[in-house]
């Protein structure tokens, strides 16, 4: 089974979930996703997802200046983002249970 296809479907949810545990900037989000087990997630995919979610109004963003290194743009969930996270979680769980049932049924 090609996990990249699965990942495409679930990446929005994964990003929202990561942001819920704390605001983050682009590369930081990528690292957190990777260390959570999504090792193959692409940098461009994460960046694009962040921008898309932001453009859709689900994220806030703010710039944190730093003395050395680049200024970082942090993203965080706003109200709309949290709602989306909850709805997406429900959808995901329901889908997962359906597929689980199918698989278990077939195996039985």
């Amino acid at each position, binding site marked *: 089974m090609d996990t990249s296809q699965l990942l495409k479907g679930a990446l929005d949810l994964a990003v929202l979930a990561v942001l819920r545990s704390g605001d983050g900037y682009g590369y930081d989000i990528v690292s957190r996703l990777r260390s959570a087990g999504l090792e193959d997630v692409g940098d461009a995919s994460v960046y*694009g997802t962040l921008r898309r979610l932001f453009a859709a109004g689900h994220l806030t963003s703010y710039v944190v200046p730093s003395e050395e290194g*680049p200024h970082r743009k942090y993203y965080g969930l706003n109200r709309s983002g949290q709602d989306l996270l909850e709805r997406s979680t429900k959808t995901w769980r329901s889908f997962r249970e359906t597929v689980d049932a199918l698989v278990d049924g077939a195996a039985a």
Partner: protein
Amino acid sequence: MSLPLTAYSPAASRPDSQVETYAAAVRAALGDLTDAQRGELLEDLDDHLREVAAEDDRPLVERLGAPDAYAAELRASLGLPEPPAVTSGLVEGALHWLRSATAGVRQTHAWTALAAFLPSLQPAWWLLRAWLLLVVVAALTDAEAYTLAGLMLPRVEGSRLLAALVLAVLVVGSVWRGQRSARLTPAGRTVVVAADLFIAFFAVFAVTSVASPLTPYRYAAAPEQAAQAVERLDDDRRALVNGDGGLVHDIEVRGADGKPLPGPVFLYDQDGVPLDNLAPWWQEPSPELPDGRQLVVRPQLDAAGNLARNYFPRVFDYYDPETGGVRATAVPVVPGEEQSSPNASPTPERSPDAPARPTPEPTPEPTPGPTPATAPDAGPEPDSEPDSEPDPEPDPVDEPAGEPTGERGAAPGPR
């Protein structure tokens, strides 16, 4: 394409310029977006890439892959539609095929390192193509472009100063075009790539056509025996050129007293081969006359009774390629000077029986130019009329009988 066509930006620090280069390439690959879309969606792409670059020393291309692969992934995750179908050009289609065919190679470390380095050579290519374009222009306007001197120091319409000015314009244009290549539409890019390829091929062609610089003079590989009455030199026979790359049309033969030897003088090389392969006088710019006729070297009889063209100074006739006929000229002509000489300035030696003049040419009768070797009696022998020769001639020689030999004998040279 793994080679980003970017607006080259000689930024101060290397990592930064790498980021800018990469970001510009990504933007270029998303060229089908509106400026507003691109601005909004890629607003902090540069910052993001800078962060990525800051985390690691490895080049961006190695960590993130080729810019256009990055852009494709970005396009998908941004939810954008696929780019418009490749109807935009043969070049785009070919490149696309090439991309997929070489995908394996392009993943290797060596390739990504090379791909990161090559963009820094782009400005050099912009300069080089400006120079090569100048050579193209020179080849169109200068007869002696296909020589080493012509390639190294091209001339435009015979002037090196003009060539320098043209070069300045071309350099500015080429660099300007190169810096804006990120904003090209696919169709525009096709045009630019096609033009670049043409220039590159032309360069190869020009270099291989150039005369060898090792010997200042060179001969055709197999000089022909000038046994035919009228014969045009083949296009691919080489012309005799001097060290400057100038074509040698004619030879001046002088005795020890400095006076031109009475002609015609027949010249042979050390192997007894006739020196008849001087520059074809009809190399560009061609002294073709308005009605399509051209000039041919009139053969003379040498001592052995053969028709030869290795005599000097040379005499030319009008040749009509349509009919294959030759009409003798009354006076020797110098290539390239026919057009400028007024018809009305015939030499005083002309015979008074004007109606019998054999050359009622509508075009100006050429007067001999700077061929100072022409001695008063150095003209062609009156009895060397081609139609009086026993040799069979492939072309009918249109030699009016009424031509006064007195004219011929006078063979006026420049006074």
